[in-house]
Protein backbone atom coordinates (compact mmCIF):
# COMPACT_ATOMS: atom_id res chain seq x y z
CA UNK A 1 0.00 0.00 0.00
CA UNK A 2 2.89 2.29 0.75
CA UNK A 3 4.13 1.79 -2.78
CA UNK A 4 0.77 2.91 -4.10
CA UNK A 5 1.05 6.12 -2.18
CA UNK A 6 4.62 6.68 -3.29
CA UNK A 7 3.82 6.06 -6.95
CA UNK A 8 0.74 8.23 -6.93
CA UNK A 9 2.60 10.97 -5.12
CA UNK A 10 5.47 10.77 -7.56
CA UNK A 11 3.18 11.08 -10.54
CA UNK A 12 1.27 13.90 -8.92
CA UNK A 13 4.49 15.74 -8.11
CA UNK A 14 5.70 15.30 -11.66
CA UNK A 15 2.44 16.64 -13.00
CA UNK A 16 2.40 19.62 -10.66
CA UNK A 17 5.93 20.66 -11.47
CA UNK A 18 5.57 20.56 -15.20
CA UNK A 19 3.74 23.52 -16.63
CA UNK A 20 3.75 23.04 -20.38
CA UNK A 21 1.97 19.77 -20.26
CA UNK A 22 -1.47 18.27 -19.88
CA UNK A 23 -2.42 16.54 -16.70
CA UNK A 24 -5.46 14.28 -16.50
CA UNK A 25 -6.70 13.28 -13.08
CA UNK A 26 -9.46 10.70 -12.90
CA UNK A 27 -11.56 8.51 -10.62
CA UNK A 28 -13.20 5.34 -11.71
CA UNK A 29 -15.57 2.61 -10.68
CA UNK A 30 -14.22 -0.83 -11.53
CA UNK A 31 -15.56 -4.25 -12.29
CA UNK A 32 -13.37 -7.32 -12.32
CA UNK A 33 -13.36 -10.99 -13.12
CA UNK A 34 -10.51 -13.06 -11.73
CA UNK A 35 -9.78 -16.72 -12.39
CA UNK A 36 -6.89 -18.81 -11.26
CA UNK A 37 -5.57 -22.38 -11.52
CA UNK A 38 -8.80 -23.99 -12.70
CA UNK A 39 -12.36 -23.19 -13.52
CA UNK A 40 -13.25 -23.68 -9.89
CA UNK A 41 -11.40 -20.58 -8.69
CA UNK A 42 -13.52 -17.86 -10.19
CA UNK A 43 -14.13 -14.50 -8.62
CA UNK A 44 -15.91 -11.36 -9.59
CA UNK A 45 -16.16 -8.06 -7.89
CA UNK A 46 -16.24 -4.33 -8.01
CA UNK A 47 -14.28 -1.45 -6.62
CA UNK A 48 -12.84 1.96 -7.24
CA UNK A 49 -9.77 3.37 -8.83
CA UNK A 50 -7.86 6.51 -9.47
CA UNK A 51 -5.59 7.57 -12.28
CA UNK A 52 -3.16 10.28 -13.21
CA UNK A 53 -2.09 10.92 -16.78
CA UNK A 54 0.56 13.25 -18.04
CA UNK A 55 1.14 14.34 -21.62
CA UNK A 56 4.25 16.23 -22.69
CA UNK A 57 4.61 16.58 -26.41
CA UNK A 58 5.15 13.14 -27.84
CA UNK A 59 5.69 11.65 -24.42
CA UNK A 60 3.09 10.45 -21.99
CA UNK A 61 2.95 8.81 -18.61
CA UNK A 62 0.07 7.36 -16.73
CA UNK A 63 -0.47 5.65 -13.45
CA UNK A 64 -3.59 3.97 -12.09
CA UNK A 65 -4.53 2.31 -8.88
CA UNK A 66 -7.54 -0.01 -8.76
CA UNK A 67 -8.86 -1.67 -5.67
CA UNK A 68 -11.45 -4.41 -6.13
CA UNK A 69 -13.20 -6.60 -3.63
CA UNK A 70 -13.48 -10.04 -5.18
CA UNK A 71 -15.96 -12.66 -4.11
CA UNK A 72 -16.30 -16.21 -5.44
CA UNK A 73 -18.76 -16.53 -8.26
CA UNK A 74 -20.09 -19.68 -6.73
CA UNK A 75 -21.35 -18.86 -3.28
CA UNK A 76 -21.10 -22.51 -2.32
CA UNK A 77 -17.49 -22.99 -3.30
CA UNK A 78 -16.19 -22.30 0.17
CA UNK A 79 -13.64 -19.83 -1.19
CA UNK A 80 -12.80 -16.72 0.76
CA UNK A 81 -13.30 -13.18 -0.43
CA UNK A 82 -10.22 -11.05 -1.01
CA UNK A 83 -9.28 -7.57 -2.02
CA UNK A 84 -7.01 -6.89 -4.96
CA UNK A 85 -4.99 -3.69 -5.37
CA UNK A 86 -3.57 -3.28 -8.83
CA UNK A 87 -1.09 -0.64 -9.79
CA UNK A 88 -0.54 0.13 -13.45
CA UNK A 89 2.23 2.44 -14.57
CA UNK A 90 3.13 3.22 -18.14
CA UNK A 91 5.26 5.68 -20.03
CA UNK A 92 4.82 6.04 -23.74
CA UNK A 93 6.15 7.83 -26.75
CA UNK A 94 4.06 8.71 -29.75
CA UNK A 95 5.65 7.18 -32.83
CA UNK A 96 3.11 8.62 -35.24
CA UNK A 97 -0.25 7.81 -36.82
CA UNK A 98 -1.85 7.29 -33.41
CA UNK A 99 0.59 4.56 -32.41
CA UNK A 100 2.26 4.87 -29.02
CA UNK A 101 5.04 2.59 -27.87
CA UNK A 102 4.83 2.04 -24.15
CA UNK A 103 6.62 0.36 -21.31
CA UNK A 104 5.56 0.05 -17.71
CA UNK A 105 4.97 -1.99 -14.62
CA UNK A 106 2.16 -4.07 -13.24
CA UNK A 107 1.82 -4.79 -9.56
CA UNK A 108 -1.08 -6.61 -7.95
CA UNK A 109 -1.31 -7.23 -4.26
CA UNK A 110 -3.87 -9.39 -2.53
CA UNK A 111 -5.42 -9.01 0.89
CA UNK A 112 -5.40 -11.43 2.63
CA UNK A 113 -2.08 -12.32 1.24
CA UNK A 114 -2.58 -15.94 0.33
CA UNK A 115 -6.11 -15.70 -0.97
CA UNK A 116 -4.80 -15.30 -4.52
CA UNK A 117 -1.53 -14.80 -6.30
CA UNK A 118 0.18 -11.52 -5.85
CA UNK A 119 2.25 -10.67 -8.85
CA UNK A 120 4.43 -8.09 -10.49
CA UNK A 121 5.63 -7.77 -14.05
CA UNK A 122 7.11 -5.38 -16.50
CA UNK A 123 5.05 -4.54 -19.53
CA UNK A 124 6.04 -3.54 -23.02
CA UNK A 125 3.72 -2.99 -25.93
CA UNK A 126 1.85 -0.59 -28.13
CA UNK A 127 -1.31 1.44 -28.00
CA UNK A 128 -3.23 2.49 -31.06
CA UNK A 129 -5.73 5.31 -30.69
CA UNK A 130 -8.14 6.78 -33.16
CA UNK A 131 -10.05 10.02 -32.92
CA UNK A 132 -13.63 9.29 -33.93
CA UNK A 133 -15.11 12.71 -33.26
CA UNK A 134 -14.64 16.00 -31.46
CA UNK A 135 -13.03 15.05 -28.16
CA UNK A 136 -13.70 11.34 -28.62
CA UNK A 137 -11.06 8.65 -28.89
CA UNK A 138 -11.13 4.88 -28.98
CA UNK A 139 -8.07 2.71 -28.88
CA UNK A 140 -6.73 -0.76 -28.35
CA UNK A 141 -3.71 -1.85 -26.43
CA UNK A 142 -1.49 -4.91 -26.46
CA UNK A 143 1.19 -5.44 -23.83
CA UNK A 144 3.54 -8.28 -23.20
CA UNK A 145 4.02 -8.90 -19.50
CA UNK A 146 7.63 -9.72 -19.01
CA UNK A 147 9.46 -11.15 -16.02
CA UNK A 148 6.35 -11.93 -14.03
CA UNK A 149 6.94 -12.73 -10.36
CA UNK A 150 4.47 -14.41 -8.05
CA UNK A 151 4.23 -14.82 -4.31
CA UNK A 152 3.57 -18.52 -4.81
CA UNK A 153 6.66 -18.88 -6.97
CA UNK A 154 6.58 -20.03 -10.55
CA UNK A 155 7.03 -18.21 -13.77
CA UNK A 156 5.02 -17.24 -16.78
CA UNK A 157 6.38 -17.90 -20.19
CA UNK A 158 3.37 -16.42 -21.90
CA UNK A 159 1.78 -13.42 -20.29
CA UNK A 160 0.10 -10.58 -22.00
CA UNK A 161 -2.57 -8.01 -21.75
CA UNK A 162 -5.18 -6.81 -24.22
CA UNK A 163 -7.03 -3.56 -23.74
CA UNK A 164 -9.82 -1.36 -25.06
CA UNK A 165 -9.76 2.35 -24.32
CA UNK A 166 -12.56 4.86 -24.69
CA UNK A 167 -12.38 8.54 -23.91
CA UNK A 168 -14.95 11.20 -24.68
CA UNK A 169 -15.36 14.71 -23.44
CA UNK A 170 -15.03 18.37 -24.14
CA UNK A 171 -12.77 19.29 -27.02
CA UNK A 172 -10.52 21.32 -24.76
CA UNK A 173 -9.83 18.18 -22.72
CA UNK A 174 -11.08 19.65 -19.49
CA UNK A 175 -13.65 16.96 -18.71
CA UNK A 176 -13.68 13.40 -19.93
CA UNK A 177 -15.58 10.19 -19.49
CA UNK A 178 -13.29 7.24 -19.67
CA UNK A 179 -13.65 3.50 -20.05
CA UNK A 180 -10.62 1.27 -19.79
CA UNK A 181 -10.82 -2.47 -20.30
CA UNK A 182 -7.92 -4.82 -19.73
CA UNK A 183 -7.77 -8.57 -20.18
CA UNK A 184 -4.74 -10.35 -18.76
CA UNK A 185 -3.73 -13.90 -19.51
CA UNK A 186 -0.79 -15.22 -17.56
CA UNK A 187 0.25 -18.81 -18.22
CA UNK A 188 1.93 -19.38 -14.91
CA UNK A 189 3.76 -22.59 -14.25
CA UNK A 190 5.18 -23.92 -11.05
CA UNK A 191 7.69 -26.53 -12.02
CA UNK A 192 5.67 -28.40 -14.62
CA UNK A 193 2.29 -27.70 -13.10
CA UNK A 194 0.11 -25.26 -14.97
CA UNK A 195 -1.47 -22.68 -12.70
CA UNK A 196 -2.72 -20.00 -15.10
CA UNK A 197 -4.24 -16.67 -14.13
CA UNK A 198 -6.71 -14.52 -16.00
CA UNK A 199 -8.25 -11.24 -15.12
CA UNK A 200 -10.71 -9.02 -16.86
CA UNK A 201 -10.94 -5.52 -15.51
CA UNK A 202 -12.99 -2.59 -16.68
CA UNK A 203 -12.86 0.86 -15.22
CA UNK A 204 -15.48 3.48 -15.94
CA UNK A 205 -14.94 6.97 -14.71
CA UNK A 206 -14.48 10.63 -15.22
CA UNK A 207 -11.33 12.68 -15.52
CA UNK A 208 -10.45 16.31 -15.29
CA UNK A 209 -7.68 17.81 -17.38
CA UNK A 210 -5.67 20.85 -16.53
Amino acid at each position, binding site marked *: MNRVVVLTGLLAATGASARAQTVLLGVQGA*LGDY*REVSSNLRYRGGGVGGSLGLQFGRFSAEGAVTRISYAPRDDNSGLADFKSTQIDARVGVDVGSGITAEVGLLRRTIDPELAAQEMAAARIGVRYSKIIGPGAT*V*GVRGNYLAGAKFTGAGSAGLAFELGLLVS*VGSQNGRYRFTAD*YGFQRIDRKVNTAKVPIEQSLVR*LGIAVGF
Partner: protein
Amino acid sequence: MRYAALGLLALLVPAAVLAQETVQNATLRQAIQAYEALDFPRVIVQGRAALRQRLTAAERARAEELLGFAFSATSQPDSAISAFREAILLDPDRQLDARRVSPRITGYFNAALGQVLVVRQLKVDSTRFISGSPGSGVPIRFTVTSPARVRTRAISGNTVLLIDSSIVAGTLTLKWNGTLANGDPVPSGKWTIVVEAFGAGQNTFSASQDVQITAGAVDTVPHLTALPGYTDLPETEIPPQSGRPLGIALLYSGFAGAGALALNNGDLGTATGREIGVAAGAALITGFVMMLKKPAPRPALGNIQYNRLLREQLTRRNADIVQQNVQLRRQVQLTAVPIARGTR
Protein backbone atom coordinates in the same frame (compact mmCIF):
# COMPACT_ATOMS: atom_id res chain seq x y z
CA MET B 1 61.05 98.53 -91.66
CA ARG B 2 61.56 95.70 -89.32
CA TYR B 3 59.46 97.25 -86.55
CA ALA B 4 56.79 98.17 -89.09
CA ALA B 5 56.37 94.50 -89.99
CA LEU B 6 56.37 93.52 -86.40
CA GLY B 7 53.85 96.24 -85.74
CA LEU B 8 51.54 94.74 -88.30
CA LEU B 9 52.07 91.43 -86.62
CA ALA B 10 51.29 92.91 -83.25
CA LEU B 11 48.15 94.51 -84.59
CA LEU B 12 46.82 91.04 -85.04
CA VAL B 13 46.59 90.93 -81.24
CA PRO B 14 43.42 92.80 -80.49
CA ALA B 15 43.32 95.29 -77.73
CA ALA B 16 40.46 93.34 -76.25
CA VAL B 17 42.82 90.47 -75.54
CA LEU B 18 44.98 92.70 -73.43
CA ALA B 19 42.23 94.75 -71.92
CA GLN B 20 40.03 91.92 -70.82
CA GLU B 21 41.19 92.05 -67.21
CA THR B 22 41.19 95.02 -64.86
CA VAL B 23 44.74 96.07 -64.17
CA GLN B 24 45.48 97.90 -60.93
CA ASN B 25 49.25 98.21 -61.29
CA ALA B 26 50.21 101.49 -62.96
CA THR B 27 53.44 100.18 -64.48
CA LEU B 28 51.59 97.31 -66.06
CA ARG B 29 48.99 99.70 -67.42
CA GLN B 30 51.82 101.74 -68.99
CA ALA B 31 53.22 98.56 -70.52
CA ILE B 32 49.80 97.84 -72.04
CA GLN B 33 49.57 101.36 -73.40
CA ALA B 34 53.07 101.00 -74.89
CA TYR B 35 52.02 97.76 -76.55
CA GLU B 36 48.94 99.41 -78.00
CA ALA B 37 51.29 102.11 -79.35
CA LEU B 38 53.52 99.36 -80.87
CA ASP B 39 56.40 100.58 -78.74
CA PHE B 40 57.75 97.14 -78.08
CA PRO B 41 61.07 98.07 -76.44
CA ARG B 42 59.09 100.13 -73.96
CA VAL B 43 56.72 97.24 -73.44
CA ILE B 44 59.68 95.10 -72.46
CA VAL B 45 61.06 97.71 -70.12
CA GLN B 46 57.70 98.47 -68.47
CA GLY B 47 56.73 94.80 -68.36
CA ARG B 48 59.92 93.81 -66.58
CA ALA B 49 59.52 96.72 -64.21
CA ALA B 50 55.98 95.65 -63.41
CA LEU B 51 57.12 92.11 -62.65
CA ARG B 52 59.47 93.48 -60.04
CA GLN B 53 56.52 95.01 -58.26
CA ARG B 54 53.73 93.47 -56.17
CA LEU B 55 51.18 92.04 -58.60
CA THR B 56 48.30 89.73 -58.38
CA ALA B 57 48.65 86.32 -60.01
CA ALA B 58 46.44 87.46 -62.87
CA GLU B 59 48.45 90.65 -63.35
CA ARG B 60 51.71 88.73 -63.21
CA ALA B 61 50.42 86.31 -65.86
CA ARG B 62 49.28 89.29 -67.89
CA ALA B 63 52.70 90.92 -67.63
CA GLU B 64 54.47 87.72 -68.73
CA GLU B 65 52.11 87.33 -71.66
CA LEU B 66 52.70 90.95 -72.66
CA LEU B 67 56.43 90.31 -72.57
CA GLY B 68 55.89 87.21 -74.70
CA PHE B 69 54.07 89.26 -77.30
CA ALA B 70 56.77 91.97 -77.21
CA PHE B 71 59.63 89.49 -77.48
CA SER B 72 57.83 87.79 -80.37
CA ALA B 73 57.46 91.14 -82.09
CA THR B 74 61.13 91.90 -81.58
CA SER B 75 62.22 88.47 -82.83
CA GLN B 76 63.48 87.17 -79.52
CA PRO B 77 61.97 83.66 -79.59
CA ASP B 78 63.74 82.26 -76.55
CA SER B 79 62.67 85.16 -74.39
CA ALA B 80 59.17 84.99 -75.85
CA ILE B 81 58.84 81.28 -75.08
CA SER B 82 60.24 81.82 -71.58
CA ALA B 83 57.73 84.60 -70.91
CA PHE B 84 54.86 82.53 -72.25
CA ARG B 85 56.01 79.60 -70.11
CA GLU B 86 55.84 81.76 -66.98
CA ALA B 87 52.42 83.02 -68.03
CA ILE B 88 51.16 79.46 -68.49
CA LEU B 89 52.47 78.35 -65.12
CA LEU B 90 50.72 81.30 -63.50
CA ASP B 91 47.50 80.75 -65.42
CA PRO B 92 47.40 77.30 -66.97
CA ASP B 93 44.10 77.96 -68.68
CA ARG B 94 45.42 80.99 -70.52
CA GLN B 95 44.64 80.52 -74.15
CA LEU B 96 45.44 82.51 -77.28
CA ASP B 97 42.82 83.05 -79.90
CA ALA B 98 44.40 81.52 -82.97
CA ARG B 99 42.13 83.57 -85.24
CA ARG B 100 43.40 86.84 -83.86
CA VAL B 101 46.99 86.02 -82.92
CA SER B 102 49.64 85.51 -85.51
CA PRO B 103 50.77 81.95 -86.20
CA ARG B 104 54.25 82.96 -85.12
CA ILE B 105 53.11 84.00 -81.64
CA THR B 106 50.89 80.96 -81.44
CA GLY B 107 53.90 78.84 -82.31
CA TYR B 108 55.95 80.39 -79.51
CA PHE B 109 53.05 79.93 -77.12
CA ASN B 110 52.66 76.26 -78.08
CA ALA B 111 56.39 75.76 -77.71
CA ALA B 112 56.10 77.16 -74.20
CA LEU B 113 53.22 74.80 -73.49
CA GLY B 114 55.41 71.85 -74.49
CA GLN B 115 58.05 72.88 -71.96
CA VAL B 116 55.85 72.90 -68.88
CA LEU B 117 53.65 70.32 -67.19
CA VAL B 118 50.21 71.71 -66.43
CA VAL B 119 46.71 70.45 -66.45
CA ARG B 120 44.70 72.86 -68.55
CA GLN B 121 41.10 73.40 -69.41
CA LEU B 122 39.71 71.09 -66.75
CA LYS B 123 36.03 71.02 -67.55
CA VAL B 124 33.25 69.14 -65.84
CA ASP B 125 30.00 69.34 -67.72
CA SER B 126 26.58 69.61 -66.16
CA THR B 127 24.77 66.39 -66.71
CA ARG B 128 22.03 64.13 -65.48
CA PHE B 129 22.39 60.38 -65.66
CA ILE B 130 21.55 57.10 -63.96
CA SER B 131 24.38 56.01 -61.74
CA GLY B 132 26.09 52.84 -62.79
CA SER B 133 24.51 52.81 -66.24
CA PRO B 134 27.01 51.74 -68.89
CA GLY B 135 28.30 54.65 -70.90
CA SER B 136 26.86 57.30 -68.64
CA GLY B 137 28.58 59.52 -66.17
CA VAL B 138 29.89 62.97 -65.44
CA PRO B 139 32.01 64.11 -68.43
CA ILE B 140 35.46 65.31 -67.38
CA ARG B 141 37.86 66.84 -69.90
CA PHE B 142 41.30 68.27 -69.46
CA THR B 143 44.56 68.72 -71.29
CA VAL B 144 47.98 67.72 -70.05
CA THR B 145 50.74 69.70 -71.74
CA SER B 146 53.50 67.08 -71.33
CA PRO B 147 53.45 63.30 -71.03
CA ALA B 148 52.68 62.40 -67.41
CA ARG B 149 50.89 59.90 -65.26
CA VAL B 150 47.59 61.50 -64.51
CA ARG B 151 45.44 60.45 -61.59
CA THR B 152 41.85 61.65 -61.51
CA ARG B 153 39.93 61.37 -58.26
CA ALA B 154 36.60 62.44 -56.80
CA ILE B 155 36.77 63.57 -53.19
CA SER B 156 34.05 64.38 -50.70
CA GLY B 157 34.90 64.52 -47.02
CA ASN B 158 36.74 61.35 -46.18
CA THR B 159 35.54 59.57 -49.30
CA VAL B 160 38.11 59.36 -52.05
CA LEU B 161 37.19 57.63 -55.31
CA LEU B 162 39.72 56.94 -58.03
CA ILE B 163 38.21 57.72 -61.39
CA ASP B 164 41.18 57.08 -63.63
CA SER B 165 44.93 56.69 -63.58
CA SER B 166 46.82 56.58 -66.85
CA ILE B 167 49.71 58.01 -68.86
CA VAL B 168 48.41 61.01 -70.70
CA ALA B 169 49.74 63.59 -73.12
CA GLY B 170 47.24 65.91 -74.67
CA THR B 171 43.51 66.05 -74.14
CA LEU B 172 41.74 63.33 -72.17
CA THR B 173 38.01 62.81 -71.81
CA LEU B 174 36.71 60.71 -68.91
CA LYS B 175 33.36 59.79 -67.50
CA TRP B 176 32.80 59.41 -63.79
CA ASN B 177 30.00 56.92 -63.27
CA GLY B 178 29.08 58.36 -59.86
CA THR B 179 29.29 55.12 -57.92
CA LEU B 180 31.03 54.19 -54.72
CA ALA B 181 33.36 51.22 -54.51
CA ASN B 182 30.47 48.95 -53.50
CA GLY B 183 28.39 49.96 -56.50
CA ASP B 184 26.03 52.28 -54.64
CA PRO B 185 25.50 55.76 -56.03
CA VAL B 186 27.49 58.55 -54.47
CA PRO B 187 25.56 60.59 -51.92
CA SER B 188 24.37 64.08 -52.66
CA GLY B 189 26.76 66.87 -51.83
CA LYS B 190 29.78 68.75 -52.98
CA TRP B 191 32.43 66.65 -54.67
CA THR B 192 35.78 67.82 -55.88
CA ILE B 193 37.26 66.40 -59.05
CA VAL B 194 41.03 66.49 -58.61
CA VAL B 195 43.37 65.86 -61.52
CA GLU B 196 47.02 65.32 -60.59
CA ALA B 197 49.77 65.03 -63.18
CA PHE B 198 53.11 63.46 -62.24
CA GLY B 199 55.80 64.18 -64.78
CA ALA B 200 59.45 63.31 -64.86
CA GLY B 201 61.34 64.02 -61.67
CA GLN B 202 59.47 66.15 -59.14
CA ASN B 203 57.45 67.88 -61.81
CA THR B 204 53.83 67.73 -60.73
CA PHE B 205 50.71 69.74 -61.24
CA SER B 206 47.14 69.45 -60.08
CA ALA B 207 43.85 71.06 -60.93
CA SER B 208 40.46 70.68 -59.36
CA GLN B 209 36.85 71.34 -60.06
CA ASP B 210 34.00 71.33 -57.55
CA VAL B 211 30.81 69.61 -58.56
CA GLN B 212 27.46 69.61 -56.80
CA ILE B 213 25.93 66.15 -56.98
CA THR B 214 22.23 65.78 -56.35
CA ALA B 215 20.77 62.29 -56.06
CA GLY B 216 17.22 61.78 -57.23
CA ALA B 217 14.49 59.94 -55.34
CA VAL B 218 14.44 56.17 -55.53
CA ASP B 219 11.19 54.34 -56.32
CA THR B 220 11.51 50.90 -54.79
CA VAL B 221 9.05 48.10 -55.34
CA PRO B 222 6.99 47.34 -52.21
CA HIS B 223 6.97 43.86 -50.77
CA LEU B 224 4.02 41.64 -51.46
CA THR B 225 1.69 40.34 -48.79
CA ALA B 226 -0.29 38.30 -51.28
CA LEU B 227 0.09 37.16 -54.84
CA PRO B 228 -2.32 38.80 -57.26
CA GLY B 229 -5.20 36.47 -58.00
CA TYR B 230 -4.28 33.98 -55.30
CA THR B 231 -5.56 33.76 -51.75
CA ASP B 232 -4.98 31.33 -48.95
CA LEU B 233 -7.39 28.44 -48.67
CA PRO B 234 -8.81 27.29 -45.31
CA GLU B 235 -6.47 24.75 -43.76
CA THR B 236 -9.24 22.82 -42.01
CA GLU B 237 -12.42 21.28 -43.31
CA ILE B 238 -15.41 19.73 -41.66
CA PRO B 239 -15.96 16.26 -43.05
CA PRO B 240 -19.50 15.14 -43.81
CA GLN B 241 -21.36 13.23 -41.13
CA SER B 242 -21.06 9.49 -41.52
CA GLY B 243 -21.29 6.22 -39.66
CA ARG B 244 -17.53 6.03 -39.48
CA PRO B 245 -17.23 6.80 -35.73
CA LEU B 246 -19.66 4.02 -34.86
CA GLY B 247 -17.91 1.73 -37.30
CA ILE B 248 -14.54 2.38 -35.75
CA ALA B 249 -15.94 1.88 -32.23
CA LEU B 250 -17.51 -1.36 -33.37
CA LEU B 251 -14.30 -2.51 -34.98
CA TYR B 252 -12.17 -1.76 -31.95
CA SER B 253 -14.68 -3.28 -29.55
CA GLY B 254 -14.91 -6.33 -31.74
CA PHE B 255 -11.15 -6.60 -31.85
CA ALA B 256 -10.86 -6.39 -28.07
CA GLY B 257 -13.74 -8.78 -27.51
CA ALA B 258 -12.56 -11.29 -30.07
CA GLY B 259 -9.03 -10.97 -28.74
CA ALA B 260 -10.12 -11.65 -25.19
CA LEU B 261 -12.20 -14.58 -26.33
CA ALA B 262 -9.38 -16.00 -28.39
CA LEU B 263 -6.86 -15.57 -25.60
CA ASN B 264 -9.12 -17.10 -22.99
CA ASN B 265 -7.53 -20.09 -21.30
CA GLY B 266 -9.96 -22.96 -21.56
CA ASP B 267 -8.69 -24.50 -18.35
CA LEU B 268 -10.11 -21.58 -16.43
CA GLY B 269 -13.59 -21.79 -17.87
CA THR B 270 -15.31 -19.02 -19.72
CA ALA B 271 -15.06 -15.39 -18.70
CA THR B 272 -18.29 -13.67 -17.87
CA GLY B 273 -18.00 -11.10 -20.61
CA ARG B 274 -19.37 -8.46 -18.25
CA GLU B 275 -16.25 -6.35 -18.34
CA ILE B 276 -15.74 -6.39 -22.09
CA GLY B 277 -19.44 -5.82 -22.48
CA VAL B 278 -19.28 -2.65 -20.37
CA ALA B 279 -16.23 -1.36 -22.21
CA ALA B 280 -17.62 -2.23 -25.64
CA GLY B 281 -20.92 -0.65 -24.70
CA ALA B 282 -19.14 2.55 -23.75
CA ALA B 283 -17.25 2.49 -27.01
CA LEU B 284 -20.35 1.89 -29.08
CA ILE B 285 -22.34 4.60 -27.32
CA THR B 286 -19.46 6.98 -27.88
CA GLY B 287 -19.30 5.98 -31.54
CA PHE B 288 -23.05 6.42 -31.91
CA VAL B 289 -23.01 9.87 -30.33
CA MET B 290 -20.10 10.91 -32.50
CA MET B 291 -21.92 9.64 -35.56
CA LEU B 292 -24.76 12.04 -34.78
CA LYS B 293 -22.53 14.90 -33.78
CA LYS B 294 -21.12 17.46 -36.17
CA PRO B 295 -17.64 16.24 -37.02
CA ALA B 296 -14.66 18.19 -35.81
CA PRO B 297 -12.68 20.16 -38.35
CA ARG B 298 -9.79 18.22 -39.73
CA PRO B 299 -6.71 19.41 -41.57
CA ALA B 300 -7.32 19.95 -45.26
CA LEU B 301 -4.04 18.52 -46.48
CA GLY B 302 -4.51 19.68 -50.07
CA ASN B 303 -5.20 23.23 -48.95
CA ILE B 304 -2.28 23.16 -46.53
CA GLN B 305 -0.01 22.10 -49.39
CA TYR B 306 -1.51 24.78 -51.63
CA ASN B 307 -0.95 27.44 -48.97
CA ARG B 308 2.59 26.25 -48.40
CA LEU B 309 3.37 26.51 -52.10
CA LEU B 310 1.69 29.91 -52.19
CA ARG B 311 3.81 31.13 -49.29
CA GLU B 312 6.96 29.76 -50.91
CA GLN B 313 6.04 31.53 -54.13
CA LEU B 314 5.42 34.73 -52.19
CA THR B 315 8.75 34.36 -50.42
CA ARG B 316 10.54 33.84 -53.74
CA ARG B 317 8.79 36.83 -55.27
CA ASN B 318 9.73 39.00 -52.31
CA ALA B 319 13.32 37.79 -52.56
CA ASP B 320 13.24 38.87 -56.22
CA ILE B 321 11.84 42.23 -55.16
CA VAL B 322 14.66 42.62 -52.65
CA GLN B 323 17.17 42.03 -55.45
CA GLN B 324 15.24 44.37 -57.71
CA ASN B 325 15.26 47.06 -55.03
CA VAL B 326 19.00 46.68 -54.58
CA GLN B 327 19.36 47.45 -58.28
CA LEU B 328 16.85 50.29 -58.08
CA ARG B 329 18.70 51.84 -55.17
CA ARG B 330 21.84 51.74 -57.24
CA GLN B 331 20.22 53.14 -60.36
CA VAL B 332 19.69 56.60 -58.94
CA GLN B 333 19.44 59.61 -61.15
CA LEU B 334 22.37 61.86 -60.36
CA THR B 335 22.58 65.48 -61.36
CA ALA B 336 26.06 66.99 -61.55
CA VAL B 337 26.57 70.72 -61.72
CA PRO B 338 30.05 72.25 -61.62
CA ILE B 339 30.34 74.90 -58.91
CA ALA B 340 33.66 76.65 -59.19
CA ARG B 341 37.11 75.88 -60.38
CA GLY B 342 40.47 76.24 -58.82
CA THR B 343 44.02 75.40 -59.59
CA ARG B 344 47.17 75.19 -57.61
